[in-house]
């Protein structure tokens, strides 16, 4: 645990920032939208200016954003369920704080870096959403600094909240792979790094009008197999490697020991919540109530997830002898991750095959990471990294000319799109590996990464948080007269 001095310093800093901003209260105009005059906001209900499309698009974007937000619960439950009870408070705490931290820092800087106009590599303005913006205007009518998001006609705040919950997801993925051994406040700081520099920069390349989006054949990622899942996955991989495996996971003779999670009900609950949230994640990425697109994306998402589950059931049965529930859960999530990039451009048949391969892939990926002794307690790497990559590539194979003319190899579109996809996968992978390694290394040097051996044995809940998740044993608490 790092010393209190740090926190006092942080608090004072925070207070100062706050005051400097709030000191400017009375003078400043309400920060957003600055160019609002250009597009008069619909005022009272039933006013003639009320625009059906604008309203429908915003309702859709917000509702799906709420669903994506809810995925935080899914991650918290899957990860806690698949870890041991002695670390449950720690994992829950990480999942709670990672979103809170992301909100703060993605608002402060991340969103600006990712979506504001700047160069091909990162945005250079839009801190705290300050700056010119006249959305909901779109196309030529739009004037402002978030040009890369002017394709959707919803208010800036709606765009922001939708992107914000995505950023939160990327950071949460890391949590699972580093579970049961990382220091709480070190993870806290890494979450901030994710929201400030790792996620937004790579995201800018793809969704922010950066170089991958402006190649001759642009790299495509509809809802984030790469942007969210594999970015999270690469960062998680670096963390897991730097931390090393949990005590007792691998024996000197290379044997892999099982460390069963403590609550399969919790893990199953988490999976269902994630799947539910994915119906916001993928169909919501239209950021518009485009009936055809959202229906197509929804059904593709549903099929790939379901088939991933069936495939993992059989793969686990054949490879391991029994349909391991934790593998089935991973299989469904793998299907969902994989379909995330191509969901707008493939047919249900394509989704079926993409999900099928994802479900098989995830089972063998889990075995593989154990073989190379990268300890990933919840399968985050197998689900998000491996299938994030697979899903991104699959777009180049299965895109079926159902929207925007995107056609993959198997549908007669040639190899161009596939090559664009490979470029994107490699570029993002290289960037995230390097930068997250640097971030992890700095945190390790300054605060340390891993808890002490005794704390790890006794559980991080007592060591880091001074509490237990399930303290109900009659003799645990020594409080008089309470039984």
């Amino acid at each position, binding site marked *: 645990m790092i010393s209190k001095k740090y926190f006092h310093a942080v608090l004072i800093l925070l207070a100062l920032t706050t005051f400097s901003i709030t000191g400017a209260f009375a003078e400043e105009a309400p920060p957003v939208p600055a160019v609002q005059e250009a597009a008069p906001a619909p005022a009272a209900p039933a006013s003639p200016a009320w625009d059906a499309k604008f309203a429908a698009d915003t309702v859709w974007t917000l509702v799906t954003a709420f669903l994506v937000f809810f995925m935080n619960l899914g991650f918290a439950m899957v990860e806690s369920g698949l870890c041991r009870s002695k670390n449950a408070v720690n994992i829950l705490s990480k999942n709670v704080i990672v979103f809170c931290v992301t909100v703060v820092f993605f608002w402060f800087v991340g969103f600006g870096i990712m979506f504001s106009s700047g160069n091909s590599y990162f945005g250079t303005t839009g801190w705290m959403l300050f700056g010119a913006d006249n959305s909901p205007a779109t196309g030529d009518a739009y004037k402002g600094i978030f040009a890369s998001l002017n394709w959707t006609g919803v208010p800036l705040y709606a765009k922001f909240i939708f992107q914000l919950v995505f950023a939160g997801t990327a950071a949460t993925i890391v949590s699972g792979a580093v579970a049961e051994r990382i220091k709480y406040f070190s993870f806290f700081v890494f979450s901030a790094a994710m929201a400030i520099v790792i996620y937004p920069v790579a995201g800018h390349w793809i969704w922010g009008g950066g170089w991958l989006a402006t190649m001759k054949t642009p790299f495509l990622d509809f809802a984030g197999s790469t942007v969210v899942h594999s970015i999270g996955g690469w960062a998680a991989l670096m963390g897991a490697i730097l931390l090393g495996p949990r005590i007792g996971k691998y024996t000197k003779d290379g044997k892999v*020991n*099982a*460390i069963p999670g403590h609550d399969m009900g919790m893990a199953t609950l988490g999976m269902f919540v994630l799947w539910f949230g994915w119906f916001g994640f993928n169909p919501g990425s239209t950021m518009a109530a485009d009936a055809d697109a959202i229906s197509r994306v929804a059904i593709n998402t549903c099929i790939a997830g379901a088939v991933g589950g069936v495939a993992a059931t059989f793969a686990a049965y054949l490879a391991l002898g029994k349909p391991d529930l*934790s593998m089935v859960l991973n299989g469904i999530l793998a299907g969902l991750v994989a379909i995330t990039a191509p969901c707008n451009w493939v047919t249900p048949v394509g989704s079926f095959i993409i999900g099928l391969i994802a479900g098989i892939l995830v089972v063998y990926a*889990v075995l593989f990471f*154990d073989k190379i002794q990268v300890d990933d307690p919840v*399968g985050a790497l197998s689900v998000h990294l491996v299938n994030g990559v697979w899903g991104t590539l699959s777009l180049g194979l299965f895109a079926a000319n159902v929207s925007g003319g995107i056609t993959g190899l198997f549908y007669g579109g040639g190899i161009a799109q596939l090559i664009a996809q490979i470029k994107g996968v490699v570029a993002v992978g290289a960037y995230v590996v390097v930068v997250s390694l640097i971030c992890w290394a700095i945190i390790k040097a300054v605060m340390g990464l891993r808890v002490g051996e005794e704390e790890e044995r006794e559980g991080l809940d007592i060591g880091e948080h001074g509490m237990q998740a399930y303290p109900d044993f009659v003799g645990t608490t020594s409080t008089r007269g309470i039984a």
Partner: protein
Amino acid sequence: MKKIEAIIKPFKLDEVKDELNKVGVQGITVSEVKGFGRQKGHTELYRGAEYVVDFLPKVKLEIIVTDDVAEKVVQTIMNTAKTGRIGDGKIFVSNLEDAIRIRTGERGKDAI
């Protein structure tokens, strides 16, 4: 007085309790234990990694009785808890020096 400890299969608990009740045993203390013995556990896989579950769930009964009924209690447990299959469990008998009923302060036989 004797202290009789019996390690039995969990699903036999109610039956054993009923039979002991019939032979006049008035008190039993039960706890959940895990047993390691000739009955081998199984090897399970979790996410592809093996683990041996060689501690099997058992129930331990502790019964304090006077010397004269000890043998009857042992026989009753033996007959009731037996399935004839490995892992049925053990009964251990040891000597007890004193027993006290907290509520009344009675000691020895009266306390049982």
